[in-house]
């Protein structure tokens, strides 16, 4: 009935177009709540979830991190005094926390470049017309969709002291073995996570590669550009937004490492060489009853990741 065609154009454009129309009779409810007030009812459940299970917990975490907070029985009201930045000071001066950040730095230094390069290379090869393409895509994707707990079990067996990898290596097997070796344990976990997540990033790059207009390649070929030249001048710059996403996501996922050190090395061993910040949050916050310390550590971690992501974005987008 009403000239609703404007609403086909999505979002703000539709609203603007609506306002430009000659005034037509509108009920006051609609002027206040919009053209479809029922929409508010539709989004209410999710908005409540967001408020209660996402927004409020973050505010609560912030509050906890500035107070001397401890677990009490439900309903018991014990004063939890404001302690300013004490929790943050405790976090930053904790040697194990420092160790965990060094571990994550080692992890990211291996995982992020390896993931980016391997995913783009694999995607480029898969993008070419090949026999068995579907099979290869499935193969590379499988670890990503499988539970980490399940695949960790195989890696645990493969890299155990008498495992397949060491029996193949024979005398070359590292001493002490992989998972109890302070130098090798973090690189091994970084390799494991790269292997586990690579398929997701390959599919991300595949989508980006398919969006590159064919004409770009054709005109480059006409101009006589070589394969390497085409790769560096067309492919790599064209997928740069995807690269930014890959780097940022890999950094965030890596910084939140928990399951792998928890299961592969028996909670961050040997000697804290595979300790991760989230593992400390679990041990301190829940096992040892210091949620204030854990909450502050959470914010320190997020701040570090944010800073790193901004830096990465700058570097990637400046080139």
């Amino acid at each position: 009935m009403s000239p609703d065609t404007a609403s086909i154009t999505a979002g703000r454009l539709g609203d603007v177009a609506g306002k430009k129309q000659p005034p037509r009779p509108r009920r006051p409810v609609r002027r206040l709540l919009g053209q479809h007030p029922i929409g508010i009812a539709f989004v209410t459940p999710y908005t409540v979830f967001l408020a209660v299970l996402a927004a409020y917990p973050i505010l609560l975490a912030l509050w906890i991190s500035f107070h001397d907070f401890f677990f009490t029985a439900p309903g018991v009201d014990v004063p939890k005094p404001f302690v300013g930045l004490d929790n943050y000071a405790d976090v930053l001066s904790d040697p194990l926390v420092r160790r965990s950040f060094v571990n994550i730095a080692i992890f990211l230094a291996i995982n992020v470049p390896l993931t980016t390069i391997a995913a783009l290379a694999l995607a480029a090869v898969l993008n070419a017309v090949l026999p068995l393409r579907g099979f290869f895509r499935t193969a590379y994707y499988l670890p990503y969709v499988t539970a980490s707990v399940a695949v960790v079990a195989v890696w645990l067996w493969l890299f155990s002291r008498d495992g397949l990898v060491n029996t193949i290596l024979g005398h070359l097997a590292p001493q002490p073995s992989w998972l109890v070796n302070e130098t090798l344990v973090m690189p091994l976990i970084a390799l494991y996570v790269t292997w586990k997540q690579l398929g997701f990033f390959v599919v991300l790059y595949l989508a980006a590669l398919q969006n590159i207009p064919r004409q770009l390649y054709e005109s480059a070929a006409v101009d006589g550009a070589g394969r390497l030249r085409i790769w560096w001048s067309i492919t790599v710059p064209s997928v740069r937004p995807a690269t930014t996403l890959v780097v940022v996501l890999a950094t965030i996922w890596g910084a939140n490492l928990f399951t792998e050190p928890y299961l592969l090395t028996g909670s961050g061993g040997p000697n804290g060489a595979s300790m991760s910040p989230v593992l400390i949050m679990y041990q301190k916050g829940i096992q040892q009853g210091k949620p204030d310390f854990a909450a502050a550590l959470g914010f320190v971690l997020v701040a570090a990741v944010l800073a790193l992501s901004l830096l990465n974005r700058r570097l990637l987008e400046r080139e």
Partner: protein
Amino acid sequence: MTTTHVPQSVAPEAATASSTTASAPAAIGKAARLLALSAGAFMFLFPFYYMVVGSLQTEPDSSPGGAVPDPGDLSLDNYAAINATVPLGRALLNSAIYTGGVVIMSVVVGALTGYALAQLRFRGREALFTVLILLQLVPFTLSLIPLYILIVRDYGLGDTYLGMILPGAVNATGVFIFRQFFLAIPADLFDAPRVDGASELQVLRYVALPLIRPALLTVVLVTFIGPWNDFLWPFLVTKDRHMQPLAVALANYISSQAGNADNPFGAILAGAVVLAAPVVLLFVLFQRHFSATNLSSGVKG
């Protein structure tokens, strides 16, 4: 093989492709690529093969010869062994209820929210969408401690299915996928039933949802993987062994057995196969639903 290219190169579109003339270097390049891909695929698939082999060997054999199993040595003993410590039926039931709860919540709430965001004009729509994207940027780690305090300590929902499910209900993947699909439908299509007096809920149920049936399956599959594989959150919520999903029960078995038993790997691998099998099966059957756009829609918006 090369002869199959000849008819293609006659086709007008294919004339632009670089492989019109199947010269020797191109063929070698193609073979090299295939070889490299196959080597890579072996690295990606071998652990899965090895998982199944190890789970069937009475005494998991970690010598290179053990990778090629002796048919006489295969048995289901390890499955019986893990089942004795971690009752698999109960653990699978817990996983199924936890996963099912999150999937149902994501589909119902996601369809309502995605439809409203895509097709309805109401006050606060843009604001809600902005908040939704902003909250996706906050890692789960930050809300880990307060959610534990709220759900387990304050509301006493530890060792309950509701306690496991609730944080999963905030998952925005469903909202984003539904919104994306509903945006693609012309708004005119919904005007006719509205004029006929259908309520907005009826429009959604009888007109909009049937149009996006593939999206429904996609949302179910993509949200299924999350809770089925999830470890950290259900691990915090469930201390009672009868309430633990399989991922948590198996992880506890791994951490209590590592270094304990002589050869605990057989039972661990049997548990791993049971945990991995449903997702692997779903993935292989419905592969095309796991595209990057669907999986990364939670990130890109």
